[in-house]
């Protein structure tokens, strides 16, 4: 997980979108380039993609907005995760709320932002047995990352808190609270 690499993927995706062939989907270290293979033969798409990759250093990284997420740290996995990390609950809360994260990309659910990077002292592997039901607004961590569940959904991340802020609202523009590239802070309530 690498903020700079994910930033380059986002910039690459922006550059592909600007060509108008179709939309790109960036992630940690990849970009899926969508296009209509009848209008743009795949070999031409490859050539265009390579050209963009060569010129990518000229594309500035997005700065992102700062998004604050008021959080009640009372999640189901808070105690166990603190214990596993050999931290007190208070120390874990301070570490989680004490730094700024970058929304590397969105995926999994509408508005679900993969935000990194957690303090390495927090040891939070994914749950071995994902939960059937994680409530909307759950603030969760896993594998060096943190996020907020936009909807009730199954999920394998460790729930450490919750927020009342709507993470996804189709009536809003943009509909997501956290956009790719945004800087995210959790404010302990």
């Amino acid at each position, binding site marked *: 997980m690498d903020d700079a690499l994910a930033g380059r993927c986002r910039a690459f*995706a922006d550059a592909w979108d600007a060509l108008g062939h*179709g*939309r*790109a*989907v*960036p*992630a*940690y*270290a*990849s*970009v*899926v380039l*969508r296009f209509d*293979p*009848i209008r743009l*033969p*795949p070999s031409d798409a490859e050539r265009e993609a390579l050209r963009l990759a060569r010129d990518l250093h000229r594309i500035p990284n997005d700065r992102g907005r700062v998004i604050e997420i008021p959080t009640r740290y009372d999640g189901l996995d808070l105690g166990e995760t603190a214990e596993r990390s050999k931290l007190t609950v208070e120390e874990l809360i301070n570490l989680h709320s004490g730094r700024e994260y970058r929304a590397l*990309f*969105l*995926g*999994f*659910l*509408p*508005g*679900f*932002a*993969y935000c990194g990077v957690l303090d390495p002292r927090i040891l939070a592997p994914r749950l071995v047995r994902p939960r059937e039901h994680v409530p909307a607004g759950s603030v969760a961590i896993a594998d060096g990352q943190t996020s907020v569940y*936009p*909807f009730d959904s199954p999920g394998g991340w460790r729930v450490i808190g919750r927020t009342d802020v709507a993470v*996804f609202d*189709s009536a809003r523009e*943009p*509909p*997501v609270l956290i*956009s*790719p590239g945004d800087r995210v802070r959790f404010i302990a309530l």
Partner: protein
Amino acid sequence: MIRIEQTGLRATVQDRGRFGHLRLGIPPSGPADPGAFAAAQALVGNDGAAAAIEVVGGPFAFRCEDRRIVAVTGRDVALRGRDVVAGWTAAFARPGETLTVVCGERSRFAYVAVSGGVTTEAILGSRATYLPAGLGRPLRAGDDLPLGNARVDAERAGRSAVSPDYDTGQIRAITGPHAQRFTDEAQSLFFSAEFQVEPASDRMGTRLTGPRIDARGGEILTMGVVAGAVQVPSGGAPIVLLAEHQATGGYPVVAVVISADLGLVAQRLPGERLRFTRVDRDLAVEALRDARAELEAIA
């Protein structure tokens, strides 16, 4: 306007998909069987961006307020009005006439197109319904759906499109982006074995059981995925992603079903079998070109 009289198990408005917000994690949605959807639109003279209705489990019945051309497509479907009109055939709808989509035993996703297209309010740039995020809602009896203006060309009635052979379980696929995660044996097993469709299959994906396909190295770094991608989770049971697939996925993709055959996968019923045939990218593009040419011929 059309009035919905019966909805079947579930009926939703769909356009070809919401592709503009994948980066916000919003699945494309749209029709599970894009070929049948496009054929229905072409039969009634709509362009590819128009919206139609996807019906799961009949009977679905509706009434047109004014004269329209209508068509139903999908697997094992027909349209009953004053007469019964076969699926994949355009029909003339008289004002006030109730038309019922007849879903046969092997029906799964049916598409009802009306000339002018359904013009419900677009959300985030699309009319594709995506229920998990509240983008649109299931249709209810009594709903009135607005339609776009259309010149009613009565000559269209009786025009038909050729349905694909939905009873075949032969699905063409290209090698996937993570093929190196699979041994040659695992790949040749995937492209020769028979799989069975699981009841848990839905608009998100067709879940398969069969011989276990093992990937090396477990999960991949989460990345964007497309409809047709065949993901292999750690249990070794492949999932073919469909319209409501998540924008990103973390399982290795062994193969990608070609666009022209997506509907054949979506329309397989639980318990039915299928096999994958490996084709190259050029053939995949040719098959899509042929499918589009057929639509242009009827439009």
